[in-house]
């Protein structure tokens, strides 16, 4: 069985990785640079089964400050990691977690409010789910070990059988 990517496959996977990284990084930087941005309103108007939880978060000042900080820095760090292909594995994992929160705040279950907020027409599947699915694909087909800084870690003489290492890095598919 041939486990190696072709050059075209690597380029495609890298483009997808960089595109998602771009999206995360830009969103994070935008929120960081626009003073006064807060997730309160987004959470306050959330719909769906988890809405009471999100709304209760939105009503606590300390909770909102923590959520804002985690969201902004989460977006920036995940974006950078995907861009650079550095610590790609945890970045994809946390990216999926973050996107799942966005999805669950406005789940498109034939609910007008959700579509109203996101400015499109969705049923069950929305853009968040597509991005989550893309990250799941990238989880299975990593590219950072070829076209990212992870390559230098993988090629280095670091011991690769520890659990910590396995949590943070993919294996190179050769």
């Amino acid at each position, binding site marked *: 069985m041939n486990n190696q990517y072709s050059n075209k496959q690597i380029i495609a996977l*890298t483009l997808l*990785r*960089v595109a998602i990284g*771009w999206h995360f*990084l*830009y969103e994070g*930087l*935008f929120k960081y*640079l*626009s003073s006064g941005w807060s997730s309160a309103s987004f959470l*306050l*108007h959330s719909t769906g089964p988890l809405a009471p939880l999100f*709304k209760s978060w*939105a*009503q606590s000042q300390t909770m909102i400050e923590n959520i804002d900080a985690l969201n902004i820095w989460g977006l920036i760090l995940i974006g*950078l990691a995907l*861009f*650079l*292909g550095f610590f790609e594995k945890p970045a994809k994992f946390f990216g999926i977690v973050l996107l799942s929160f966005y999805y669950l705040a406005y789940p498109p279950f034939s609910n007008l409010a959700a579509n109203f907020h996101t400015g499109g027409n969705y049923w069950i599947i929305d853009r968040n789910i597509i991005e989550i699915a893309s990250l799941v694909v990238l989880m299975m087909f990593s590219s950072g070990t*070829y*076209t*990212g*800084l992870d*390559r*230098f870690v993988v*090629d280095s003489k670091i011991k690769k059988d520890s659990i910590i290492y396995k949590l943070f890095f993919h294996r190179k598919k050769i």
Partner: protein
Amino acid sequence: MKRRNFIMGISSMPILGAFSIGATKNIYKVLNDKKVDSKEQLSINQFDVISERLPKPTGNEQNRIRIGLIGHGWRGEGLLNSLGFFHPDYVNKMKTEKLYERWLPYQRRHENLFVDITGICDTFDIHSARGLDAAKNNVREDRNTPEILSKIKQYRTYKDMLNSDNIDAVIIATPDHSHGQIAIDAAKAGKHIYLEKPMCHTIETAIELKKTIGDSGVVFQIGHENRQQMSYKLGNELYQKGVLGDVSMIQTFTNRNTPFGAWIRERQFDNLGNESTINWKEFLGNAPWHNFDHKRYFNWQRYNDYGTGMIGNDFSHTYDCVNQVLGVGIPESVVAMGGHFYYNVGKDDLADVFNAVFYFPDKSLTMSYDGTLKSGIYRQTRILGSEATMEIDRAIMLYKDTYSKRYKDIAEDSDNPFYYYAPNARVDVDAVTSATSKNYFKSGYGPTYIDGKIIDATFLHLKEWVDAIRGQGKVSCGIDAGFEEAVTLCMANLSYLHKKTISWDKVNEQYSIG
């Protein structure tokens, strides 16, 4: 080979470089475009009313107020509930529906006002008995000792109650036609009064009541609990700050689409009503004589002899909200038209479709009311201004006018609100299920959000009255607001009945037909 490895590893770096130069530039450009802060421009980024705190408690063991309830029907029982008195059946219902654990803390969150219900008066024995059971079951404090309970009395007529020394104040929640007379007699007896809306059934009684209250010195509050609703207070502040520009038109609506909403009501014990359990003469009061009629008694809202129709039941709320926001007062003239097309046609005389136009030349505006009992579509009150339009109920939405010069830099177009107030008050604390109740809550007559808490607006309104009796603060819906409400709605009903324009002479306080 090494060199190739290195280049591959950093291959995404150039894209990141390009990104970092372009991205920050773009962010600052977008932010600059957004810089016109609509709220700042409106000077509505800070509000006085939103930072309002709950008024301090005024009650203690020494200054207890003894209240008599006149009229323990649907609304009378609701008022007892707002004071913390619940019929045991209600408490059991909360328990069987597994709502008790949530309901009791919500009740206890409301201040103990140190009031006792010491008298119940109703023309229907079953209602009285139920009222007594509720009065004996205070869920906010432990007052259910035999000595205290023995002081709670049933009165056969309201006059007996007014003659009693065991009563300091009365809550009146009787059919509309009796409001005025009972309140006049109560004021003369020196009892403080909380009177349900609409204040009066005729303009003549309203004039007499206003005079009596003015002479009496009792604390008088009309039961328009919307006065406590944050959105209407905020609406008033926005209007005062001139956010809307010139207001030329106000549109008000009420809609219902159920027999219950059309006041065709059967409660489980109504069939116990007969000539021996109902004090028919006391019920009729000053109304024209009619032989005992079960339907007239239980569905009194459907008869102009006793009720005020959609105008008195539904529009009076909406009118008072508008009056609270804009202070429109009494219109110079009113023209109304309606029809009795759908419910009990030929049996009673309530219009089920009603339109009215109210003319306010001194304010340079007109107000319309469209009401139907045959469509449940929900419509908020709309206040149309030259710069912006306000949609108001429990929430507020502001839309800029397409031709507004003042708001031309605001990014939102006229289809999307550029400002909204939507408090996150959960309305299902009391297991509200019927459509009528939902509209009631949405329209802002249920709970409100104040001081970081969700509080029943009717409770706040009662508290304001109780505090004022103790000399703290003033009532927000006193005799003047009540008078404006009563005259306005009576003018609309007169116009409907006479099919003529009704005019109001504000100097001589007289109306004329045609």
